[in-house]
């Protein structure tokens, strides 16, 4: 078991011939991801790391059959078209690595995805990985080993930090999900928590949040009412000055909402211990697993 993706997931890479596309195709293959095709318009017939490149997803489907998941290494101005192509082709999990996708493009992508029942991971995400089974993303392979912890994070590198800490302490992961740092992303904490609650292999969930928005507060409400599995959290941004942009459009503190203190309060009220520094997570989960 794992959530969203597993060892049978057939993956297609959009933008496979680009710099990042080819580099991460290699990385994903070496992790064991079942990549079945790549797409780069005008580059049909080439190969990247042994994977055949097609002009369009329809062309790929004619040769390799249905695609379960796709990952996009497509520049921001073309990302909407690429995501639409995946969604339209019936791909069920679409991972949008791309940073800087226009906000309204993201809105359109999410609406279209919803109408087709597609799960979108990102944009501006490191991706999703089911440890030992399937990696669809750009995270460093070596830190993801199978184990009982589910991780869901807004921020990429921060989750690496925590997953690496977990690994060193002897805890592997089931699935690690990067929600993405943009204001509009496909998954929220609750979507992912629901899946972890259903997943038999996941015994405990680590939430990696940050200041800004109300996603953590909403998650707290859900945890209180629906989660039976233990959840622990780390929140970044305790020392961030209020009202300043901290890189993620999502991390703007607005009108007193989304503060560090408010989030901690909401989570603790839901029985979720909150670490103020990333390396404290390990000690928080010790008694719970």
């Amino acid at each position, binding site marked *: 078991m794992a959530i969203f993706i597993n060892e049978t997931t057939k993956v297609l890479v959009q933008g496979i011939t680009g710099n990042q596309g080819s580099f991460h195709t290699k990385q994903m293959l070496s992790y064991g991801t079942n990549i079945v095709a790549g797409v780069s318009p005008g580059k049909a017939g080439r190969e990247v790391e042994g994977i055949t490149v097609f002009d369009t997803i329809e062309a790929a489907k004619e040769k390799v059959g249905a695609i379960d998941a796709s990952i996009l290494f497509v520049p921001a101005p073309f990302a909407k078209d690429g995501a639409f192509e995946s969604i339209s082709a019936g791909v069920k999990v679409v991972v949008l690595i791309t940073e800087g996708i226009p*906000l*309204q493009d993201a809105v359109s992508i999410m609406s279209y995805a919803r109408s087709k029942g597609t799960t979108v991971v990102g944009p501006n995400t490191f991706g999703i990985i089911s440890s030992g089974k399937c990696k669809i993303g750009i995270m460093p392979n070596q830190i993801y080993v199978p184990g009982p912890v589910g991780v869901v994070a807004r921020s990429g590198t921060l989750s690496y930090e925590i997953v690496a800490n977990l690994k060193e302490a002897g805890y592997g992961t089931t699935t690690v999900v990067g929600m993405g740092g943009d204001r509009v992303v496909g998954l929220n904490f609750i979507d992912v928590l629901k899946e972890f609650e259903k997943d038999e292999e996941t015994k405990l969930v680590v939430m990696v949040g940050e200041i800004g928005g109300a996603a953590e507060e909403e998650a707290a409400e859900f945890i209180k009412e629906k989660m039976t599995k233990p959840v622990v959290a780390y929140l*970044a941004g305790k020392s961030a000055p209020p009202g300043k942009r901290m890189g993620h459009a999502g991390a703007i503190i607005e009108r007193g909402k989304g503060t560090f203190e408010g989030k901690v309060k909401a989570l603790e009220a839901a029985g979720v211990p909150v670490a103020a520094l990333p390396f404290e997570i390990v000690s928080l989960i010790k008694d719970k697993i």
Partner: protein
Amino acid sequence: MKLYEFMGKEMFAKFGIPVPKGIVARTPAEAVAAVKEIGSCVMKSQVLTGKRGKAGGISFIDDFNQAAAEAEKLLQMEIGGYKVETLLVEEKLQIDQELYLSITVDRASKSPVLLASSQGGMDIEEVPEEFIVKKIIDVFIGVQPFIARDVCRRMGLTGSVAKSFTDILLKLYKMFCEMDAELVEINPLVISGDKVIAADAKVTIDDDSLFRHKDLPGVEERTALEKKAYDLGLAYVQLDGDIAVMANGAGMAMATLDTLNYYGGKPANFLDAGGGAGVEQTARALELLLETNPKVIMINIFGGITRCDDVASAFANVKKSKGITVPVVFRLVGTNEEAGRKILEEVGVHAYRTMQETAKKAAELSEQ
């Protein structure tokens, strides 16, 4: 990108949304000429912040002889940290009622959201929830007349005012979409007789969409250093400590500040070098940090899409070409870690493996 009020109103006019007659003035002389043309008017300082009315940034000019003095006064003000450089001289409106209307994007529903109130004006944030009409917009159908009808009903608008409001709402949504706005806000939207007029304009265009709006004039609200960082594709915020910090990923950068603080260090900045920064971009980021004359530099890299060898090469290049005299505390793990460590060792820098030891060391060095 935030637009000045006068720019927002120009955009409104282009989309057919009624605005008061107005003239932009950048000097007292221009302001006087504008007053001459418009007559009894209001002189509004153009700054990228709210609450300017309460800060005295708006003057009502009834007597033509006041014009020069008032303009001079306003043009010397600083409001919320912004120097007033431009005035908008506008006809005075007869105000029968002030409404509020805005469209922005709602995170939770991942859709545009429309907010409206019959109690607009300066204190909109204190208006009770029940007087705020909120509609989540399905982008597949957009703002349709039936939605406008229900908004009018809940605001108590009827007759020709409801008709004008509906017209403005439909056009505002069109503008919101076509201009890739993050926010369009009219507060107050004034009922003046049987007319409805946008008396203010707050418009923010999505920075990520600017590639398709090349004809828009640029508006800069960043400090010189922040601007430089932005142009390099970096997210940079100036803080008041003495440890220059570079990390990759916004969350990681925030966590780095948190950890530095925990060990008693004082970060001089927030700098997210970005997900996929290459050698060139990382080098520029380092040079930027050097310019701020920090006591210590802390670099915290967990390589994912960022490759450790790229960061290390960039560092080595800068060290060789510019020389780095302040102590550098480096943490380097992740993609291509071994190659990166090797490059660093060649220029005499040891890389730590954990954030804790790195932050602790940086804090210690900054104390010396």
